[in-house]
């Protein structure tokens, strides 16, 4: 990359919660939590309006999917158990997730951005990268135009970060949330990025973060100052080198506009932990349903898979995964169930299970006629070796 790129990261503000507020505007300004499975569906109140469920009344094992900024102020964040978050914000409103609505607004905001800047990398339901390098206009004016277009199309606000690459743009979009607009120039690296915690770098999770912490590296600046050989020694060649480059704000990844899915998966957390033997029938039913769900997703999206994997989380939160690569690609529920069953035989089943997931990877698109799958190379007829 010779010329300087202009990459924007656009992140919708508290997306799920904000979509809910469009539907229930009377909740604006209150702490609202989206999560759980079906529980807490608002009921029409006598005399108009809705009767909402309170977080404090929730019983179950659901987790917070999103929370409004008001709820975040009470300490309630995504991923937290609902009952645990109720201890922090008893009176927060609880709403069940409504994915159809989120997908609808997701399509709308992406279409609005695409009308202005078509080079978009889809990063999920509520965030995208946009390559603005080819645009002549002033960066801030262009970003402001995008924000206004998103608001006009959805009534929702977003935060945009703009920098020379995806890594910095992602960090930048988080610097001024909600409804923020942050543009980072080369000079801002030391002043605005280096003081941040290393975990602000997308890709440094709890494990790497803890390890860096043990090395006395807490901020991105400290990471940048760490000698590359030390990082390579601790994290291996590629991760070590990446950490060093990331801390110096270097990232050459292009904005990938057409992305093929890498895998398709379904998983579920049980209402109560299930025992492999005592709850065998229930487990088996859920397992088969998950496999069928994955098969449905594959068929709907026009893929077949070569690898089937399972994921198990035990009652003690330890997780295991197992994969099986098949000789030929499959997309049927029965085939996936059989392969996943093989995987299941390879995991210890002594303690109770909390979560079960099935994943199809090694995806191949099924295109008609010239379909590569029909191509089958013949084998020379040697005697099977004795």
């Amino acid at each position, binding site marked *: 990359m010779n010329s300087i790129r202009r990459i924007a990261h656009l992140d919708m503000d508290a997306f799920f919660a904000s979509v809910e507020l469009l539907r229930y505007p009377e909740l604006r300004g209150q702490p609202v939590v989206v999560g759980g499975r079906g529980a807490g569906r608002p009921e029409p109140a006598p005399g108009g309006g809705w009767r909402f469920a309170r977080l404090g009344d929730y019983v179950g094992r659901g987790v917070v999917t999103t929370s409004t900024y008001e709820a975040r102020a009470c300490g309630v964040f995504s991923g937290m158990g609902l009952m645990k978050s109720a201890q922090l914000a008893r009176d927060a409103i609880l709403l069940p997730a409504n994915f159809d609505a989120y997908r609808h607004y997701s399509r709308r905001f992406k279409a609005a951005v695409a009308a202005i800047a078509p080079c978009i990398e889809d990063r999920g339901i509520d965030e995208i990268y946009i390559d603005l390098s080819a645009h002549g206009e002033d960066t801030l004016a262009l970003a402001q135009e995008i924000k206004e277009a998103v608001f006009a199309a959805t009534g929702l606000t977003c935060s945009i970060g703009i920098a020379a690459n995806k890594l910095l743009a992602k960090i930048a979009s988080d610097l001024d949330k909600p409804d923020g607009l942050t543009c980072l120039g080369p000079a801002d690296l030391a002043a605005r990025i280096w003081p941040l915690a290393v975990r602000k770098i997308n890709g440094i999770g709890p494990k790497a973060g803890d390890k860096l912490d043990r090395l006395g590296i807490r901020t991105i600046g400290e990471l940048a100052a760490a000698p590359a050989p030390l990082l390579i020694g601790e994290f291996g060649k590629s991760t070590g080198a990446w950490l060093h480059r990331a801390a110096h704000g270097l990232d050459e990844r292009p904005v990938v506009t057409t992305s093929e899915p890498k895998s398709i998966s379904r998983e579920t957390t049980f209402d109560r932990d299930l025992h492999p033997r005592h709850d065998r029938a229930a487990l088996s039913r859920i397992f088969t349903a998950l496999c069928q769900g994955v098969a449905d997703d594959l068929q709907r999206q026009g893929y077949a898979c070569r690898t089937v994997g399972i994921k198990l989380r035990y009652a003690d939160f330890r997780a295991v995964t197992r994969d099986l690569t098949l000789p030929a690609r499959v997309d049927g529920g029965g085939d996936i169930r059989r392969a996943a069953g093989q995987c299941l035989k390879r995991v210890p089943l002594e303690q109770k299970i909390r979560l079960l997931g099935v994943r199809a990877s090694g995806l191949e*698109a099924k*295109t008609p*006629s*010239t379909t*590569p799958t*029909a*191509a*089958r*190379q*013949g*084998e*020379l*007829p*040697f*005697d099977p*070796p004795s």
Partner: protein
Amino acid sequence: MVLIKTQRDTLLAPLQSVSGIVERRHTLPILSNVLLEKRGDKLTLLATDIEIQITTATDVAAGEGDGAVTVGARKLQDILRSLSDNAEVSLMLEDKRLQVRAGKSRFSLQTLPADDFPRMTLAEGETRQFQLTQKAFRQLLAKTQYAMAAQDVRYYLNGLLLLTEGKELRAVATDGHRLAFASVEIDADLPRQELILPRKTVLELNRLLADNDEPLAITLAPNQVRFAFGSVVLVSKLIDGKFPDYERVVPATLKNHMTASRTLLLQAMNRAAILTNEKFRGVRVVLGDNSLKLIAANAEQEEAQEEIEVQYSGDTLDVGFNVGYLLDVLNNLHCDDVQWSFNDANSSALVSVPGNDRFKYVVMPMRI
């Protein structure tokens, strides 16, 4: 102590001929090194990866004394290569370090003791020896090696079968989808013996052998083979396994024969290959009266069609092939015409050279 003082190229050329097999990352550090051994005017270089060992020798302007040391092969090679062409280089052994000096450049390299360097012992037992020209053996390899498997679980396919019988040396390689066979006459009369050369040995020999009429002496031992040519001696272990019976898959009777100009066919195939599916590389070969059509299409539904004039009066045929397998054979032959014989669209096809039974290439069709 100045060990060697000589022109850069006097050192670089032999170093390059041994260092090709040195692995960059190895569990045994000494294996990234090359052994330098100086006796009188003679410098011997030796490198090994435990499976293969290459030795070469060169005459150097005498330094003060004799000595032996091992030093990082890549580093020494990179240093020599980056010096100017006519630089005079001296190697000095000083306190367990090898000093490399040229003009105002100084390099101090760490060494490991020569005594620790693993050497392959020559195999005991009965050996047989024969000789042919470097060119003849190199061509034998060139006509077959591309059909070797690379990382097959059938480990014996990741190599090349050498077979002696009477006054003939045969080479066979296959990856299970296609098979290449070539043979050459040798100067000895030998009993039938088979051995499998590892893939790396084959590639290395192909790199080192010259296209000339200088002799190559091959010594076959029970689990080892030795190639001596020019100043190089290469000793390789063998793949211990049973190579599949290649004669079984060479079709005995074929009813449809097509003859075409190799160059025309190759050019048409190169063009058609552009629009084959990247992964499967399937091309349809449609044969009619004196005509051969190639049809390729990729996942984006783009399509290529080629038609060339050939000599053919057999059945009308429509057969799919991996175009890579066809390009491989056409690229590695040097004849004017090739013959291509078929039975039907589902069984193996044979590519051969008219009037020459020393080469055969069997390829299975691909159902497209």
